[in-house]
Structures are given as C-alpha cells and as structure tokens.
C-alpha cells in the first residue's frame, strides 16, 4: 500500500534522511523508532505529502506522493485540533472541506464519536477536553475521511502514562474493527512493539534504515501481550539497537526471512529484504 523508495531529504547542506526504503502492506501497522531528531517526523511528512523529498519517492497505492494525497489520514502529536471548533466540527473537518453536505456528514461523525468513545461531548471545545479526549477527537477526525493509510506522529507522546496505555489499547481495538495501513512513529520502544506488525529502526546521521524487525505477535493483541516472551525478546533487541547503538543487523537472527519459523528468543531482522 505504501512504498518508500530511497527517500532522501536535505535542508541546505544538512541531510536528514538518506536512502530510506521500506514498504507497508494493506492493513499492516509499521512502527518507526529511532533516537530524537533522526528525522522520523520528516519521514512521516514526506509520506503524508506535506514535505517534498529531495530524492527517492513515496508511493501510495502505486501513485507517487507529491502533495497531500486522497485517502490519507494524519494524527498529530499535539492533537492539532482547531480550538474554535467543537468536537463535532473538528471531526467533520475533512468531510467539510470536501464539500460534503451537512446531512451526509452528521451520521458519519456520530458513528465515529461512538467509535472513539466520546458520546456526550459533541459540543465541547478542545480547551474543555483532557489530552486523551483531544487525541480521540484527532483520531476520529483522521478516520472520518475513510483513509486507506493512517499516518501517526507520536500520537500518544503528549499524554500521561495512564491515558497513553488506555489509548494504545483503544487504537488496537479500533484497528480490529477497521484494519487500515498505518505508519506509527514513536519514541517508546514498548509502544512500537505493542502496536506494530513490523518495526523500522532509523539510526545515524543522516538517518538510514538500520534494521526492520518482524514483531511476529498475533492479533488481536491484548494488554497481556506485553508479558509474553516474544514481546520481551523483540523489545530487548530494539533496546540494544536503539538505545546503545549496538547490534548490527548481522547479529541475532541474521539472514532469516520472516517466512520461516522464529526461534522464540530471537527476533527476526530483515533489512534489505528486497
């Protein structure tokens, strides 16, 4: 569904991303992790069409992305809600700018409001809502345009730990109801493993794809997944790579394709599997 090929982005003399390549299949969730400032957000903006790459390209459903394309919904770290619109107005925004009539918009928005659990808050303004509720609104807004692709930029980073845990599970539940291709950028390794089917690790200056890891945990995922051996193995591997900069792709699980059965203690690494 999403194809990132040799994506490169420069600002003046500074190269932020270099030859980043990976794919996202239909209904697949790919998490992206990496140290701060490694260009995760830039990558996301290129996928969403908000930034034009310096080199390489992004395709969605086979068509190259040069400006924000149809069928992409974006969720922002700081929610990005319009303070002067109600919850209803915010969620309806994508449909409003499409020129959809109010009669058509209303049932869709109401459906989404119950999907994200915001019944009763249709007329509330963002300043009256908690962080978690604001992000639910942001999510509903992105889903309103029935996207084929969801692009999420550290969506839970601005929330407190408890709300974060809650919304992670909410998102997984919503995904079960409406499977969509997703790119999920996060700082949290735990979150990346919990949410993603595969994890892209970005590293280096300029950023490159250090590794792509198969999470290999089945869906639907519950909270208990966090305690499974597989989860811990993947998480520990990621920790080594991301936090300490150690662990080249040639170490644990080298050369294995995701098609083969995995050893329980070793995550599969699959960089350059093309």
């Amino acid at each position, binding site marked *: 569904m999403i194809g990132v090929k040799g994506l490169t982005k420069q600002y003046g003399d500074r190269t932020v991303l270099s030859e980043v390549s990976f794919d996202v299949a239909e209904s697949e969730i790919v998490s992206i992790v990496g140290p701060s400032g490694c260009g995760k957000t830039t990558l996301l903006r290129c996928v969403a069409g908000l930034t034009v790459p310096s080199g390489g390209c992004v395709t969605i459903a086979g068509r190259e992305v040069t400006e924000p394309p149809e069928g992409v919904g974006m969720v*922002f770290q700081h929610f990005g809600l*319009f303070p002067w619109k109600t919850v209803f107005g915010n969620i309806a*925004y994508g449909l409003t700018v499409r020129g959809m009539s109010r009669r058509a918009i209303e049932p869709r928005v109401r459906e989404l409001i119950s999907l994200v659990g915001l019944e009763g808050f249709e007329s509330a*303004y963002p300043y009256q809502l908690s962080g978690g509720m604001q992000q639910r609104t942001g999510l509903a807004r992105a889903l309103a345009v029935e996207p084929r692709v969801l692009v999420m930029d550290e969506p839970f980073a601005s929330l407190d730990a408890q709300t974060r845990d809650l919304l992670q599970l909410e998102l997984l539940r919503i995904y079960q109801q409406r499977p969509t291709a997703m790119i999920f950028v996060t700082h949290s390794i735990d979150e990346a493993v919990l949410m993603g089917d595969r994890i892209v690790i970005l590293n280096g200056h300029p950023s490159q794809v250090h590794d792509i890891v198969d999470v290999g945990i089945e869906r639907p995922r519950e909270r208990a997944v966090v305690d499974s051996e597989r989860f811990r193995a993947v998480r520990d591997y990621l920790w080594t790579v991301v936090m300490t900069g150690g662990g080249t792709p040639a170490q644990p699980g080298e050369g294995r394709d995701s098609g083969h059965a995995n050893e329980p203690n070793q995550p599969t690494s699959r960089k350059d599997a093309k």
Partner: protein
Amino acid sequence: MPLSDWRWRAAAGYAVGLIGGAIAWQIVGWHSASYVFVPLTTTLDRLGQLISDGSLPRALAASFSVYGVGVVLAIVSGAVGGLAFARRAILRQALEPYLIALYAVPMVALIPFLLALIGYGFWPKVIVVWLFAVFPVHFSTQRGAESTPPELIDVARSFRSSERATWWHVVIPYTLPFLMTGVRQALARGLVGMIAAEFFLSAAGLGSLLITQSEQFDTAGMLATTLVITLIGVGLMAIGRYIEARFARWRVQP
C-alpha cells in the same frame, strides 16, 4: 464567608473612593474662584442645563457620527489590510516600513495639513479618527494571521484544504482574537482623534464644545462636558474589553 467578605471590602473601598472624590470635588469647588473650579453640585446643574438647551445632545450626535464612521472604517480597512499583508509577503516587505513610520507620527501634527488640504467638516474629522484608529487594528490583525500555528496549517493541508478553506477555517478564526484586541485599542485611540479633530476642524461635537466653553471661561460647563466624555471613554473601554474577552475564549495557548 471569606469570598463575600473580600467582595464587600472591595466594594466598600470603591464606594469610599467615589464618595471621597465627590466630597473633595465639592469642597475644592467651594473654595475656588468660579472660573477655576466649581463644586460638584454646580457642575451637575450646568450639565442639566446643557442637556436641556440642546447643546450637549447636539454635540453628542455630531461626535458619535464622526466617531462611528471613522472607527468602523478603521476596523474594516485595518482588518483587510492586516490580512492582506499576512497573505502577500511582498506587500508586507514593500509597505511595512512606511506603515511603521507613519504610525510613529503623532497624528495630531498632521491635522493642520489636513485642514489645509480638505478644510473643515465631517470628512476631515472622520479621516483624523481613521488615522488614529486604523493602525492598531492593522498591526494586530497582521500579527495574528502571520502567527497562525504552522501545525494547524499542516492539519488543513493534510486534509487537502484549498487555500480559501484554510483561510476560512483556520487563519481567520485564529486571527479573530487578535483583531478584537486591535478593536479595543482602536476604540480608545479613535476617541482621542475625535476630540483632537473637533478642537480644530469643526464647530460641532464635544471637543468643539469644550473649546467654546474654555473661551467663555465656562468652567462649570467644561467640567460637565469632561465628565460626559469620561463616562463615554469608560463605557467604550468596557465594551472593548468585553469584546476582546469574548473572543479570547478559544485563544490558542502558546
């Protein structure tokens, strides 16, 4: 209860201040020559006279018409100008230095030039009011539109909004609180412009009334008129602050 206790003390303080001022006015008036200062009671008498003989109502009508037209023109042209400058960087780059320079001119100093160019009357006064009031509106609006958070613009773009939709749904609502701050300032400055214009550019209006009264040493009349002007000023400021607060409700927190 502590809260109402505080409120009572505040109200009492203000009341004492008000009554104290009134008493002071009365006493100073008694002990002054009548062309220097008059007691409060005399002032209120004179106020009654000015109302009944029509000079005050006429002056109010003349003043408000000038003020109303001038301020409305200032708000509209300032808002449009501010938005235009935010939208077209070339406008801003080319003209902003001159606007800032013009804003630095004490506008009163331009009144003689206006007099020479267009003479006395309604429209010269309106132009003066406009000159006084337009700049805060323009600069506030421009600053607001320019400071629209890029993230919100990104949100609009991510939904493939046209430029028109972005202005309508994002920039203009974001800018409204700034515009209202400019309106509040315009209301105050426009009032100054109105009085100054009426000193020099006409025989009608509150400012002109003051000049006439000063030439006749009608101190009671001047105090009465000044009192009316003060009340108008206070009223306009209250309106301005109310408007500003109402639109700040959804003001984006930095």
